[in-house]
């Protein structure tokens, strides 16, 4: 700024001439100078304020904009660690005890349509009907012709089908990724596994929900462990399950039976190594498999846990265990086996002719109904009921299958003396094969209660309450070994392994009371190896009938026992049981040394 003098000489002279005070000029100039400085300072600060205000405004607008943006967009966390990884498949796998896959997931696609976006509905419907033979042209046309925004066409399609649909070039046909449950072994262990169905469904994913078997029982576990990769490990052994299923289905055909079931159980841990029920189904296609048939005819019906049958003479083992435990008899005690026994209008007789007196061991070996009935009478109804209760017949087995959760043995409301006598040899009480298998395991593992399980327990002992003494358990095994060795179950002898067991043949119950004369349920309950009992195998056949010569054979000794023998022969090496291959001349061998 150009500074002006406060007392310009010309003005001073001029004022002096007028006789005025020149100091006033200076005052006036200072005043004006101050005014100018003030104006300048004001302008400068005002502009500064303006710039500052502008700056703040811009910043605030920026911040507000960012805040708006943040609040409007969905939050995305930075994926900085691999733990955040979502697994490619969601529902946990199911494995057998050796880690073989029983159930897993596979990514496939679902086909849906947006009818409004379609170009040539007629053509598309025709082509789709060609690609998917199970879909009808008319139905497809109706579906695609509707005015809906969105229709499902097929839930699971294969990559080939997907490609074929792609090649139609129809913009209204869309694909959504789908996780599907796959059972690579097909029908194997189908009743244990059960099956799944789609639950809540969206375009891009669908929830898999268990609908039966362990898939339903452990649904929460299988769904919950997202990404942890923790599989569900069952007690089943794939190889053993396969062998049992193979032998049983072959045997079932050979014996002309309608159905069959087998349970193989570790008697110390309660682990089920194999559970088969025939006819079975393909869990990959569960919904179709179960159509049209009711009750036990339905392949979805698990005979080993859901079927309640009168299982006949295998129950003699429970009567025998009770009287041995109570000290009423010893193995060599003589028992009256005269036949028949009349109780009111009821007649109890032996299946075949027997002497009038047999040792207690032979009552079981020859499977005498009258002998067992008399023993049960001595035992009494209360003790018999209590003993069967302690073996778990009147509760559910506790197996991890939803289907079995309400299954308990059925028995007469009035447990009279005649009931006591018939129940002693397995008539008048119906129970599931698994109930009998667990009771056998309990009696023959040394006498402690064992609960069957489908979960892998690594063969650890699961000792429960003591039901019978170890001595009685050992006696029982000896007696049951003789049943196989020289009794009704001689067909169950296995080359190289010693087996103990008991046959049971019962007439089938008519749906509205009474019994069928020529329809049987035959059972063979066995335990092996006799030297160190480890496994219980129970085989039950529904209406078996074979012809030997001209004679029709329907008893367990002819039907269930040989199948059990073959199963043990096949399975025992897989179980790692050492065969006791005793060559007869072994004793005569000379030990030679150098």
């Amino acid at each position, binding site marked *: 700024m150009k500074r002006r003098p406060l007392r310009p000489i010309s003005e001073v002279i001029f004022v002096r001439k007028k006789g005025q005070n020149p100091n006033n000029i200076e005052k006036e100039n200072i005043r004006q100078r101050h005014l100018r400085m003030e104006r300048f300072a004001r302008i400068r600060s005002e502009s500064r304020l303006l710039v500052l205000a502008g700056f703040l405004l811009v910043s605030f607008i920026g911040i507000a904009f960012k805040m708006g943006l943040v609040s409007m967009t969905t939050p995305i966390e*930075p*994926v*900085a660690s*691999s733990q*955040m*990884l*979502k*697994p*490619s*498949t969601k529902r946990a796998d199911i494995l057998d005890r050796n880690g*073989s*896959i029983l159930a*897993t*997931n*596979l*990514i496939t696609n679902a086909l849906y349509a947006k009818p409004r976006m379609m170009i040539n509905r007629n053509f598309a419907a025709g082509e789709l009907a060609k690609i998917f033979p199970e879909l009808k042209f008319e139905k497809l046309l109706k579906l695609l012709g509707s005015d809906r925004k969105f229709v499902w066409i097929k839930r699971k399609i294969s990559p080939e089908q997907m490609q074929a649909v792609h090649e139609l070039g129809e913009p209204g046909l869309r694909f959504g990724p789908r996780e599907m449950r*796959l059972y*690579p*072994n*097909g029908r*194997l262990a189908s009743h244990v596994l059960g099956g799944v169905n789609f639950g809540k469904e969206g375009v891009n994913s669908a929830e898999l929900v268990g609908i039966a078997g362990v898939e339903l029982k452990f649904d929460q576990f299988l769904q919950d462990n997202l990404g942890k990769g923790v599989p569900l490990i069952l007690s089943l052994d*794939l*190889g053993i*399950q*396969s*062998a049992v299923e*193979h032998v049983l289905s072959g045997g079932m055909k050979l014996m002309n039976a309608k159905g069959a079931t087998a349970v193989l159980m570790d008697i110390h841990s309660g682990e089920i190594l194999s559970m088969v029920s025939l006819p079975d189904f393909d869990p990959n296609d569960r919904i179709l498999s179960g159509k049209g048939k009711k009750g036990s005819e339905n392949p979805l019906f698990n005979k080993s846990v859901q079927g309640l049958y009168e299982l006949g003479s295998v129950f003699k083992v429970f009567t025998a265990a009770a009287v041995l435990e109570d000290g009423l008899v010893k193995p060599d005690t003589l028992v009256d086996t005269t036949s028949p026994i009349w109780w009111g209008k009821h007649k109890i007789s032996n299946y075949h002719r027997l002497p009038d007196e047999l040792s207690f061991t032979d009552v079981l070996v020859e499977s005498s109904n009258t002998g067992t009935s008399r023993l049960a009478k001595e035992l009494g109804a209360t003790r018999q009921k209590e003993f069967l209760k302690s073996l778990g017949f009147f509760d559910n087995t506790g197996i991890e299958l939803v289907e079995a959760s309400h299954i308990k043995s059925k028995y007469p409301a009035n447990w009279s003396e005649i009931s006591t006598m018939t129940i002693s040899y397995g008539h008048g009480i119906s129970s599931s094969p698994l109930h009998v298998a667990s009771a056998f395991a309990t009696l023959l593992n040394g006498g402690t209660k064992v609960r069957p399980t489908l979960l892998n327990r690594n063969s650890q002992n699961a000792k429960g309450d003591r039901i019978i003494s170890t001595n009685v358990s050992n006696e029982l095994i000896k007696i049951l070994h003789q049943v196989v060795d020289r009794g009704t179950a001689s067909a169950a002898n*296995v*080359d*190289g*392994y010693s087996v103990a067991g008991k046959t049971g043949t019962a007439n089938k119950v008519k749906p509205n009371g009474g019994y069928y004369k020529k329809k049987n349920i035959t059972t063979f309950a066995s335990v092996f190896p006799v030297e160190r009992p480890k496994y219980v195998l129970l085989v039950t056949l529904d209406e078996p009938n074979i012809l030997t010569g001209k004679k029709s054979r329907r008893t367990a000794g002819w039907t269930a026992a040989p199948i059990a023998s073959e199963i043990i*022969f096949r399975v*025992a*090496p897989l179980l790692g049981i*050492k*065969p006791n*291959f*005793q*060559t*007869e*001349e*072994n004793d005569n*061998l*000379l*030990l*030679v040394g150098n």
Partner: protein
Amino acid sequence: MKSITYILVTITVISLAFWAYQESYRAKSTLNLIRTVNKDIHFIQEKLGVLRVEWAYLNRPDRLRALADLNFEKLRLIELNTKHFDDLMIIGVKKQNLSSKTADVLNQTNFNSDAAEISQ
């Protein structure tokens, strides 16, 4: 003095800003990399899943049984059963001292000549 402080502060601010800028971009590119890697892992996991399924499917017992039946003779397979086990005691004993049953088994299996043929 004052101006030196100003200059120093300004330089500090600028260099910090530069560092932050660089860090931000490094972080972003790392996140991008992680995303790609995760995508790859996801893809490979999916592939692995399919392979596992395929493996399980190809090794299903039904198929293995069928294959074993088909190639039973070609591969000179023998059934695993109790006949292949015996007491250790009899090993080293002359053949004529063996029970007829055991000798039978030994003759049947004839593993020496089989092994020789297979190794050829």
